């Protein structure tokens, strides 16, 4: 009995892990925003990435401040640690783990935009990154 429950749990876990992909996140965020996946906009996603906002010490900041102008390149945290590329084309690990994706949107949107990002924004963002070759 216990074995069967544990087995079912494992299957659920692995099914869950393998289900997450950039495309599945786009579907999820589009649904949460109440729009069709096809209504997600790579152009708005790119604008979000490059948009500059007042930073802590008077300098402008954007996603690109740490992730560099090209999300296919590795970036750097403020204390110099490497950040693996954001674009799935350069880093297949991206957008494969829901907890991680939500954690970093929560942290980085509040840091850069001083607010959380909407589901629409998250969907647009991934739509842009996912079509980079």
């Amino acid at each position, binding site marked *: 009995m216990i074995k069967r429950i544990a087995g079912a749990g494992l299957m659920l876990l692995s099914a869950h892990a393998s289900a997450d992909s950039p495309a599945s996140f786009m579907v999820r965020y589009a649904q949460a925003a109440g729009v069709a996946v096809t209504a997600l906009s790579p152009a708005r996603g790119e604008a979000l990435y490059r948009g500059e906002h007042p930073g802590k010490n008077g300098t402008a900041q954007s996603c690109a401040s740490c992730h560099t102008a090209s999300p296919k390149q590795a970036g750097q*945290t*403020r*204390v110099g*640690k490497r950040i693996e590329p954001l674009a799935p084309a350069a880093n297949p690990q991206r957008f494969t783990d829901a907890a991680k994706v939500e*954690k970093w949107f929560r*942290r980085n949107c509040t840091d850069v935009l001083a607010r959380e990002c909407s589901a629409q924004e998250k969907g647009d963002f991934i739509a842009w990154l996912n079509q980079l070759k």
Partner: protein
Amino acid sequence: MNYVLRGIGVLATVGTLSLLAFSLPSGGEARGDGGGDDLMPRLTHNNWQQECASCHLAYSPALLPQSSWRRVMGGLEQHFGENASLDPATQADILRFLEANAADSGRSRIGDKVMQRMDKKAAPLRITETRWFVKQHDEVSRATWARKSVGSAANCAACHRQAEKGIFDEDTVRIPK
């Protein structure tokens, strides 16, 4: 008769004590720091390594007291100017680990040294503010700290090239230009 009994007693006591002494691992190993003065305790902890090290080196818990770690982990929404918030379960798990191995946990030689130089009531937020850190780095000039290649005193690995492995001895130091 009496002497014989006493003799047996003494032998038994000495025997037990020496057995105890030999069965305990030598100081360094027992405390997980491998014995070297500049070695960080060798520790593994999934959440600590995953979460803390996604932005910076997973700084050794032995470099700050428990009171400091409670302050750090209680303020992750504003972690040195960045939002480093975690879900409550992960946060609590990491704090337990940090407290268990903190400078004042008595579990590492390097922690003892950090505490020797610290005010009892102090709970610094930055490792770089501890007297131990300042003393260890007193030969590094302000100009060197300010180099772009160093970036920040939080960037241990800029000079301690094997910092990620917990190796901080002077032989492995290369200050970048």
